[in-house]
């Protein structure tokens, strides 16, 4: 059954929760509604299910206006699975699913064999047959959610509305429930509208997505059109990486935490990371998350550390792929190092191409910058230069501070930078004391 939503506005007091929403859902489609907390998703679903009446606008189900349905007629057309399904009453699972037949029964009529058969099928489709005689109160969250979907199916609806059906479930149940819902839309032709929290699940399962922000539709259409880094940043205020699903190509969102902090103008402690060959990605992310201003160098373009630095939007000195660090890049690197409060030498593989990076670390140490040498796997031979690299590394270790695990590194950095700032404060104070 198709649904047409025309200029829906919903105001609560003076607050506009839905603002002129218009769109069309064609029959048998699985449509996901996404958006940040408080964007009006749930309100939208409640207007669709007629729990709330819109302030303006109208909804058409099939050929009939939503408001023209009688309550029972509506319940025979549309079923709703809400977010909070935990009612404390000791009904058996079968009793609860039988309630789905209530819209088909007259006041003096009791359930017929046909009704029990429909309930049996609904339990079977949702994989709840074995729960039939259990109390609804003693089920796990995932089981209860499936029972609620079974109750909705017992209503034999043409439209199914779901409000965050998987929000409290683990990944196994999430998949199970959404697989089930998708199957219902594709094989039974039920039109499904679901509010979903998880962007990846939404993009993966839904035929179409609607992205809502502050009661307005920001984007709608195919998942690839809606889930873009640009849209997500606009709506959620966080930068993400959108990449195609490795197998099916649907858009998948990866978090890039800490990034937005980089854009802030406040003075951050500057830490420079010398990395390469995948040794520095985690370091960069952790230090970004901790709120430092992080730079990296010299990295080969295409190296996984280079990719990581780019994704995190870090200033990087980069060199062409598969070539040695040139002296121009080395000079730039040294300039960048001078501004850092601390330098971290990651556990890089040593080759002739990147010995200049060790050189740079040595020079930084000579200039009085603290150099931390991370070595978590000392037994591993990572010298591919026939001894030269090993020798340089030993020198850096002598000049700098050897660290054997990341946690220790983070603590040492925190300590050093705290000390720095208190020394700064002290000198400021003595300055003002002597001048005053």
């Amino acid at each position, binding site marked *: 059954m198709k649904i047409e939503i025309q200029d829906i506005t919903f105001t609560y007091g003076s607050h506009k929760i839905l603002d002129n929403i218009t769109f069309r859902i064609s029959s048998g489609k699985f449509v996901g509604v996404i958006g940040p907390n408080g964007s009006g998703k749930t309100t939208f679903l409640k207007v669709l*299910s007629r729990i709330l009446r819109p302030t303006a606008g109208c909804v058409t189900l099939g050929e009939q206006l939503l408001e023209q349905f009688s*309550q029972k007629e*509506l*319940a025979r057309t549309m079923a709703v699975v809400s977010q909070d399904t935990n*009612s404390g*009453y*000791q009904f058996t699972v079968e009793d609860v699913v039988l309630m789905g037949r209530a819209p088909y029964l007259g*006041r003096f009529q009791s359930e017929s064999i046909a009704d029990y058969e429909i309930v049996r099928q609904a339990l079977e489709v949702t994989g709840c047959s074995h729960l039939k005689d259990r109390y609804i109160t003693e089920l796990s969250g995932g089981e209860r959610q499936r029972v609620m979907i079974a109750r909705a199916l017992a209503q034999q609806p043409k439209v199914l509305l779901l409000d965050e059906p998987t929000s409290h479930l683990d990944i196994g149940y999430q998949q199970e429930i959404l697989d089930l819902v998708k199957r219902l839309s594709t094989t039974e032709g039920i039109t499904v509208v679901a509010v979903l929290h998880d962007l990846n699940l939404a993009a993966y399962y839904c035929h179409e997505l609607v992205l809502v922000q502050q009661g307005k539709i920001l984007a709608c259409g195919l998942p690839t059109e809606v889930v873009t880094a640009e849209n997500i940043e606009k709506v959620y205020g966080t930068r993400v990486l959108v990449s195609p699903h490795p197998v099916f190509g649907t858009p998948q969102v990866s978090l890039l935490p800490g990034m937005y902090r980089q854009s802030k103008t406040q003075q951050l402690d500057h830490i420079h990371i010398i990395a390469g060959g995948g040794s520095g990605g985690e370091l960069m992310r952790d230090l970004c998350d901790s709120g430092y201003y992080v730079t990296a160098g010299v990295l080969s373009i295409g190296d996984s550390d280079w990719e990581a630095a780019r994704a995190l939007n870090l200033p990087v000195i980069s060199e062409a792929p598969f070539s040695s660090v040139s002296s121009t890049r080395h000079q730039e690197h040294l300039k960048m190092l001078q501004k850092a409060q601390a330098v971290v030498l990651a556990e890089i593989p040593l080759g002739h191409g990147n010995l200049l990076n060790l050189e740079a670390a040595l020079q930084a140490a000579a200039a009085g910058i603290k150099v931390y040498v991370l070595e978590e796997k000392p037994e591993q031979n990572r010298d591919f230069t026939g001894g030269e690299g090993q020798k340089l590394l030993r020198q850096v270790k002598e000049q700098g501070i050897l660290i054997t695990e990341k946690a220790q590194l983070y603590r040492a950095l925190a300590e050093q930078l705290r000390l720095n700032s208190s020394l700064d404060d002290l000198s400021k104070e003595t300055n003002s004391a002597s001048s005053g």
Partner: protein
Amino acid sequence: MNRKNKFLLYSLLLSVLVLSVVLATAIGAVAIPPGETFRIILARLTGLFTVADIPTSTQSIIWNLRFPRVLLGLLIGASLALAGVSFQGLLRNPLADPFTIGVSSGAAVGATVAILLRQVYQFNFPQMVPLFAFVGAFLAMFFVYNLAKIGGQVPVVTLLLAGVVVSSFLSAVISLLMVFAGENMQGIFFWLSGGLIMRSWTEIWFVLPYLLIGSVILYTYARDLNVLLMGEEAALTLGVNVERTKKILLVTASLVTAAAVSVSGMIGFVGLIIPHAVRIVTGPDHRTLLPASALVGASFLIWADVVARTVMAPKEIPVGIITAFVGAPFFIYLLRKKKSEIRL
């Protein structure tokens, strides 16, 4: 509960009720054997045979004094238990009872006014106290309902709050009236404590229609009550016209309560504990819970009244005191023993 268990349950509860009626009628100052009692009741009820071998004085004691009183206990107990189940389900609150939304306080004010009028101003007409009480109850219900109404809807929380506020206000009114009453206070006190003393067939004909019609209406809404337990929004999506259903149930349960309270005074605890006790056995399905509670409530009040009139005979204790004395410990026992099962 499956069909077979339901049948067993109803047979058991009905037998207990019939037995209670006969035994309770047999017990009293003049001892009359239960067999004779049963024959007198059966002969009078059916009119199929006569009991000429039993002295007419005995017949008169049974038929004019004891049996109406026992029957009234049955009706009041059933009414209060039914109303209790309905209010607990409707308000989705385990503490709700027939008195929660102020119906009984309204009845009490009405009764108090009537007693004062009669004793202080000698203004009197037959059945004045129950009529005043009924009008009071009706006015209180009307007032609470309109107080709780917000834009055509009656939210459960507002209803509870309005009921509690109006109840305590009316209690203050009663206290004030009792101050005015002075030495006439005892009549009011006895009415407030609830009792079946000096009641006759008149009261039965007063209560019976409300209970009969009320129980039919409540039972036809049993499925809606079940669906309402899933929450009002869920009930809407399952095809229940929530606001209309609430209105009908509220008015019906209130009228059943009002009729019962007007003739018996304030008999507490029946409407609170009977539903909980029965729910432990039947589960929350109102299609079983409503009739089963009515049967249990009826038997319970019959026995409470037997205790009230025999334990300090010839003096009578108000039956409301007995129900509280039995009800409160039983409720605490339920709470402690079956902690997990005290829910709706």
